């Protein structure tokens, strides 16, 4: 079926392939499809973990395993019209990281933080129109390659290394305001968040 489709780009081809695999996992509990998703995402998930904790290979293995288990368990909650599989997997990985940070008590308080992200993801109301989602993904994909290096660097610090703006500012030896404005500029250029003029 997949081969019959006339696909515009390799990127779209990959997105559809991942969606098909997810459908097989969700509906048929298909282990071959799950194995392919594992081969695709596990190396990425390890890299995501290592970006935050360089050299911590055991933790990276654990993240890869646990996030893939969550993918298996939550496959039926994945909504293909709302997000690409990779976007959904990113949110699973991020939420897992938030849980881990809580366990190691960086945020000491009485709240279970994963709920603040989890539940919003699950019922983020109106489905993000499939077409808009596709367009946004293409824009970000292309946009990241065209951004100035220093803007990508700040985004990577925040998203991949899990640094707060303050930590990014300390590490890059930049004023806090500069870090924030690079984030804003990058996101505006990719048309991710357009408002905010300063």
């Amino acid at each position, binding site marked *: 079926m997949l081969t019959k489709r006339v696909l515009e780009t390799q990127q779209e081809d990959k997105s559809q392939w991942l969606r098909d695999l997810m459908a097989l996992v969700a509906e048929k509990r298909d282990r071959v499809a799950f194995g392919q998703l594992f081969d695709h995402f596990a190396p990425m998930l390890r890299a995501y973990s290592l970006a935050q904790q360089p050299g911590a290979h055991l933790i990276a*293995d654990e993240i890869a395993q646990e996030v893939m288990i969550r993918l298996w368990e939550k496959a039926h909650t994945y909504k293909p019209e*709302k997000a690409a599989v990779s976007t959904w997997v990113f949110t699973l990985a991020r939420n897992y990281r938030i849980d881990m940070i809580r366990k190691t008590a960086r945020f000491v308080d009485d709240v279970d933080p994963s709920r*603040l992200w989890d539940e919003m993801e699950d019922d983020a109301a109106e489905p993000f129109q499939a077409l808009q989602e596709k367009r946004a993904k293409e824009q970000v994909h292309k946009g990241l390659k065209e951004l100035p290096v220093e803007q990508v660097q700040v*985004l990577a610090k925040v*998203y991949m290394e899990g640094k707060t703006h303050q930590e990014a500012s300390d590490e890059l030896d930049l004023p806090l305001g500069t870090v924030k404005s690079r984030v*804003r500029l990058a996101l505006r250029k990719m048309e*991710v968040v357009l408002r905010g003029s300063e």
Partner: protein
Amino acid sequence: MMASYHPPTELLAAYAAGTLKNSYALCVATHLEYCSECRAAVQRLNIVGAELMEDLAPTEVSESIKSAVFDRLDQIEAGQSSSPSSSASPIGSAFVSDVGNASVQATTAPSEPAGNVPKSLSYFNISDFSSLTWKKATKAISSSRLFCDVNDARVELLRIMPGGSLGKHTHIGEEVTVILQGSFSDEDGVYCRGDFMIRDESHQHMTVATNDAECICLTVQDGPIQFTGWFMRLLNPFLRIIWVRSAEPAY
């Protein structure tokens, strides 16, 4: 109604990246319930995370990791709660024990709080605002503490009677406010349900609830507020302890 005041872009990005501290994340999550525009923005911000993740140099995964995961699938399928971490979600475990998942969805959906309480506050088991223990600070204002975040940031609900005023004040740290019910105004504008405000030392403002209804908002105080009226200024040293107790109009 749509919210018209939104979190700054970099705050939404930190939320999507998962680096925002809980008190701020709670405020953003609450705003998102009222704001479809920001929900769509967060969806796009998640795409940025996904693309950056895909751009990382992939690392090798040993076969033993993969076979360990498949062993876990066997255990899950066998209906055992096998996850060594506490991360097994109710949705996930329910799914294996109940194939038709329509009923599962219903039972695992977050309990819908009554009235005007946003879902983001469901963790605190608030059935409705009037059932909370409100500590009266002045005739016009009472507060109810939710929790304390890192750096002693206080997360509370404030209840301002119709026409009540918080007095003229500024902040040592940052203050984030999300309106849950009613509305209030300051020198910069009128704020309604869902609106998200962030204030710091550079803002000296005076907050007044509108006359027709009481106003309830979620606030995070990153540092004590400073009253700037001539009389209240004398009180500043004491306000680090209980600032809101003396929040009568300062003029």
